[in-house]
């Protein structure tokens, strides 16, 4: 580690990681129990990326997210109760039950939205960066997106315009090895096709973007790389790309039979679980004891459990609410 992170910050990062994990594990159970309608994509396994990057953000910064957005939301500080209620489709949800898992947003705290369309958040983040450059220099935007999204046209267009306009933006690729069943880079026996021939960092460099490949299971490695990229952006030196290598533990969506990968592969990755790695490190560094960290995990579990109880009891929206919120005026 070449950077010093204050103890409080480290503890906070750990707390958020376990909160994300607790939220996702619980959502997994709730989906299996038939409690959650719609499509649910879980972030478990990738916590180091959201937390490593977002821990560098300050008030006035923005992020855009993906279909797998719970982790980004929690790291940005979205209300857990509002999120859980949203997953249930309750009117107390953060989007009044209109959005659901794939469309959680909270602009007040800089979270510009999960997104059901692969890659679509990226140009939006470029727009936020454009606005920041003009009106609030020193603030930055971060676009989170998957390895799969990296091949979507509008994402590559966004990389280019961000470079030529020298925008304060950090492109964060969450390369969790798969886009549903499609391998990002290294073929496997089960899925021999790959989605790209070169690393995403190489591709970004071809656009003129500073890029680096990062161990996405190591939250401090992500933190450090993100810190450098975000500081460059704050100084007006333009965009960077972080290519974070990570892994999702659950299926692409809940209910995915996962024919494209083996149990062994999952086990292999789980050995480098980002929370365990960080925990061991914190203990080794003397930042916290096993006991203290376990207490944080329990707090997270409790917080999630409270959110579930509340969501269970909250009311569904009135049917008439279907017709509001299309425009700022009543016409629809």
């Amino acid at each position, binding site marked *: 580690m070449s950077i010093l992170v204050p103890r409080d910050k480290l503890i906070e990062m750990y707390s958020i990681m376990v909160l994300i994990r607790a939220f996702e594990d619980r959502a997994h159970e709730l989906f299996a129990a038939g409690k959650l309608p719609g499509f649910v994509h879980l972030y478990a396994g990738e916590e180091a990326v959201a937390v490593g990057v977002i821990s560098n953000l300050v008030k006035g910064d923005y992020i855009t997210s993906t279909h797998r957005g719970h982790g980004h939301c929690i790291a940005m500080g979205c209300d857990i109760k509002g999120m859980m209620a949203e997953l249930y489709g309750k009117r107390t949800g953060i989007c009044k039950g209109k959005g659901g898992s794939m469309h959680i947003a909270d602009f007040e705290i800089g979270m510009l939205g999960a*997104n059901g369309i692969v890659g679509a958040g990226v140009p939006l983040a470029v727009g936020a960066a454009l606005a920041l450059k003009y009106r609030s220099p020193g603030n930055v935007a971060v676009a989170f997106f998957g390895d799969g999204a990296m091949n979507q046209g509008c994402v590559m267009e966004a990389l280019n315009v961000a470079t030529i306009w020298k925008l304060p933006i950090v492109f964060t690729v969450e390369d969790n090895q798969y*886009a549903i069943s499609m391998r990002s880079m290294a073929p496997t026996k089960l899925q021999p096709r790959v*989605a790209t021939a070169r690393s995403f960092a190489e591709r970004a460099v071809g656009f003129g973007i500073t890029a680096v490949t990062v161990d996405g299971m190591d939250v401090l490695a992500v933190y450090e790389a993100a810190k450098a990229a975000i500081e460059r952006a704050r100084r007006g030196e333009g965009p960077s790309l972080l290519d974070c290598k990570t892994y999702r533990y659950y299926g692409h969506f809940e209910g995915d039979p996962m024919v494209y990968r083996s149990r062994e592969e999952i086990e292999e990755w789980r050995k480098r679980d980002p929370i365990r790695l960080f925990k061991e490190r914190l203990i080794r560094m003397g930042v916290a004891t096993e006991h203290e960290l376990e207490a944080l995990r329990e707090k997270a579990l409790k917080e999630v459990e409270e959110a579930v109880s509340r969501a269970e009891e909250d009311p569904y929206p009135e049917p008439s609410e279907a017709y509001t919120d299309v425009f700022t005026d009543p016409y629809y």
Partner: protein
Amino acid sequence: MSERVITFVEALNEALSLEMERDPNVIVMGEDVGVYGGIFGVSKGLLERFGSDRVIDTPISEGGFIGAAIGASAVGLRPVVELMFVDFFGVTMDQIYNQAAKMRYMFGGKIKVCVTIRTTIGGGLSAAAQHSQVLYSIFAHVPGLKAIIPSTPYDAKGLLISAIRDDNPKVFFEHKLLYGVKGPVPKESYTIPFGVADVKREGSDVTVIALAYMVHEALKAAEELAKEGVSVEVIDPRTIVPFDKETVLKSVKKTGRVVIVDEDYDRCGFASWVAAIIADEAFEYLDAPVKRITTPNVPIPFSPTLEREILPNAQKIVKAVRQVVRKI
């Protein structure tokens, strides 16, 4: 005809297999169509049977690979390419409507673009605003694309085989709520012509026109209304480009009353177009206002209570039919 009963998904899968066997120019492309067998299982087993030259998993580059499928079809292959959800059309519409749809015309009728674009449509799964739309009206709006919308496993198989053999660009819309629906489907290959509506139920008091999943809701409504002594004719156009105007007009001329059911958004949608045709070409025969039961002009909400509120269903159809048989 064999009385074998299979699901809508199996019927589609069978159509693909049969055509791939029959014609080596037929290839299948799309996200997760290979190893995964298609996100809803439509292409299951095809990779194993036909190999990776003909069953091609693609990156999330709809503009690139649908464009490629169109290009390949213009030089003689017969690709069946999947747009996973119709809601994603916005990233690849140019290839579909400015290229595939217009090439033959722009180039003076000298070439053929036979690509088949398969896509899923429809709400009812709380899949929210970007995964629940229908949107066939947008594709039908654009000249040069055929638009096929089956409602039963039997129709699905026959229409998909016809689609693959048809020499024009076309979009094949599969409603998500139909995939699990079962029905009798012959084992052997057969085709169903485009532009021939199917009268799914005969009746004399009112004509109900419906597509895809809404055909089933319309039949449910008809059953309900029969108990009240109202005889409903349910017409399933099956393809909207070409559109079997004759069957529709004949029915309306017989009943004098019509309700058009359409899961697509109301504004500038398919229901309007059918209503407009009727208001022009069967005006003298109409005994009541032309009613539409459509999805109102709001994005599809996530919460089940909200989604239920806005989607058309049997209950709403019953209400509308009661209105038109009472009126005037």
